[in-house]
């Protein structure tokens, strides 16, 4: 296969609403919390910074908000350098992890607070508060005290408070992390609806890859303080820039081996695959294949058309509701592959111990140079 192009560092920005350039953050102990972070975000876009805990994503968000001064680098919002600007002089609305609503105020007073502090005409404040409470579907509940509202309603107050003064930028610091799954998914769609309705440029931080894929126009994956990839959700999923991204977004199995003309050689087993970027033959590589791109059949004849076919033994069958996850040991590779099976008619087709055949196409096994990029595991 011809090598795939290296994924773009960033989608083409127009006039960037947010520009982060060469930002380093050194807390003085250990490695840099943020190292050389640069990105541009166009007006009205919804960006999610995705990464595991300790990846530096929250630190980067707090630098943009102005709560922390970067050791090096520059932040521009709406074309203006704000690196040295105090947080209360930046036009940024933020929804905090634990919401940080003012406990001694009612919902409406919370929403009115930024308007008062930013010296909006007092006559216009009640109307704006009402409009934004309606926007987050809390009409009529403005008089409630914060502790009289449910978790979801408190979320909505926090969103209204962050948006009511029409900031240039909205920041979301994992506000959904503490919610139960059903409410979280409801609020994800709600964030997206409100963001589209107002067209406000938004940066969201999360460790939940599903949330990132659902809500975002663009995703940045961070690890160890570095931006690993900046891409649209579909690209991020289809064409991860390195094994770390392949492992963090979606479920992948990793193969170790050496680059061959047709893919990689994993300890004698030839696996058809597609290199990401140019990799010389014989170089140590890491292959990544997604669980849903491996086909599993009892009869190898039904895998005709697959570029690689390997025998396997089912070790475990995990029912996940809308799909099954098989753990299948492939003796030729000396490891267990994760394989999704979506066809509900054939659920629980194979039990542990069943002998099966696995197959995939060359375009679905991505091959990364071991020399660059981080390990996926």
């Amino acid at each position, binding site marked *: 296969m011809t090598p795939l192009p290296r994924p773009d560092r960033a989608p083409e920005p127009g006039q960037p609403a947010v520009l982060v350039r060469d930002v380093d953050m050194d807390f003085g102990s250990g490695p840099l919390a943020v190292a050389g972070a640069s990105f541009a975000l166009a007006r009205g876009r919804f960006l999610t910074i995705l990464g595991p805990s300790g990846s530096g994503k929250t630190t980067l968000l707090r630098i943009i*908000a*102005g*709560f922390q001064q970067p050791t090096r680098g520059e932040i521009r919002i709406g074309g203006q350098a704000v690196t040295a600007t*105090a*947080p*209360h*002089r930046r036009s*940024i*609305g*933020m929804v*905090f*992890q*634990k*919401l*940080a*609503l*003012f*406990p*001694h105020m009612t919902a409406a007073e919370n929403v009115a*607070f*930024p308007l008062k*502090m*930013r010296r909006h005409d007092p006559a216009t404040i009640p109307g704006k508060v009402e409009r934004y409470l309606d926007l987050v579907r809390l009409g009529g509940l403005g008089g409630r005290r914060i502790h009289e509202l449910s978790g979801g309603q408190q979320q909505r107050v926090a969103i209204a*408070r*962050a948006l009511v*003064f029409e900031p240039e930028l909205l920041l979301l*610091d994992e506000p959904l992390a503490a919610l139960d799954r059903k409410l979280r998914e409801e609020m994800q769609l709600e964030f997206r609806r409100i963001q589209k309705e107002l067209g406000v440029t938004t940066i969201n931080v999360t460790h939940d890859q599903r949330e990132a894929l659902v809500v975002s126009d663009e995703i940045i994956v961070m690890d160890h303080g570095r931006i690993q990839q900046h891409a649209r959700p579909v690209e991020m999923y289809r064409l991860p820039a390195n094994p770390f991204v392949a492992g963090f977004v979606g479920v992948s199995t990793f193969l170790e081996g050496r680059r061959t003309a047709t893919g990689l050689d994993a300890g004698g087993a030839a696996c058809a695959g597609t290199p990401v970027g140019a990799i010389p033959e014989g170089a140590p590589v890491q292959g990544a294949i997604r669980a849903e791109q491996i086909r599993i059949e009892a009869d190898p004849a039904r895998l005709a058309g697959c570029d690689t076919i390997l025998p396997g033994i089912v070790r475990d069958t995990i029912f996940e509701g809308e799909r099954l996850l098989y753990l299948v040991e492939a003796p030729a590779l000396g490891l267990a592959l994760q394989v999704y099976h979506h066809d509900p008619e054939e659920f629980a087709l194979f039990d542990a111990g069943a002998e099966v055949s696995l197959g995939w196409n060359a375009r679905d096994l991505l091959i990364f140079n071991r020399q660059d990029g981080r390990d996926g595991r």
Partner: protein
Amino acid sequence: MTTAGQRLAIWSLVWISILILSAPTVVVLGASVTSGNMIAFPPEGFSLKWYQKIAMARDLRQAFGRSLVVATVCTLVALPVGTLAGIALSRYRLRFANALQVYLLLPFTVPLIGSGIGLMLVFGEWRGLGSLWPVGVACAVINLPFLVWSVSSSATLLDPDLEHAAANCGAGRVQTFLHVTLPAVMPGVITGSLLMFILAMNEFLVSLLLTDARTVTLPVQIYNSIRSIITPDLAAVSVVFIVIAGAAIAALDRLVGLEIFLKSK
């Protein structure tokens, strides 16, 4: 489920505790309404004459007034210091946080007689003895940790990002303090202030060391009376003390709810 036997044991414990804890109050209350001339429990007959007597007693009334002044001075001095210290201790990383924590333990470790003598020497040096304000200031110094605790326990319950959220809303540092931090810790401030007031009102040992014949506070006045003769009017004065404390707790419940008071560490 608890068995009948367990329930009996638990309720017995509860009632014994209630009886023991309330016994002194009940005895004093009973003794204060006796119609006899001796302090006694159970009282002989019922009469409010001792209350009438203390209401008429000029020295007691004056001592009560002085105690109110002392308690007010104490609260006013402690309020700004304790509130700021409590907020600082729980909301900011301080350089001397450990030293401050040790200071907060002092009221339990240094005997009051020790700190009282120290304060007596200090105010004596400053020629402050003989007026009331040194007593109030001394009570503030000794009891300040209670206010600091009350405020900081209220402040630690707040979201760590509260001040950031205020900054995000466009509030500068002073506005953030006045509109967000201070109102949010107000339950702790009210609790601590009432506590300071009552503690200063009741303070005996330090008052004894810092007052003279012209400035005796109520607890010292009672003590002086006990030394000469024990009559039921002292029980009546004690009941007045209990009523003031009860009123403070009722006020607290109305203002901020008792949960916060009970949660204070």
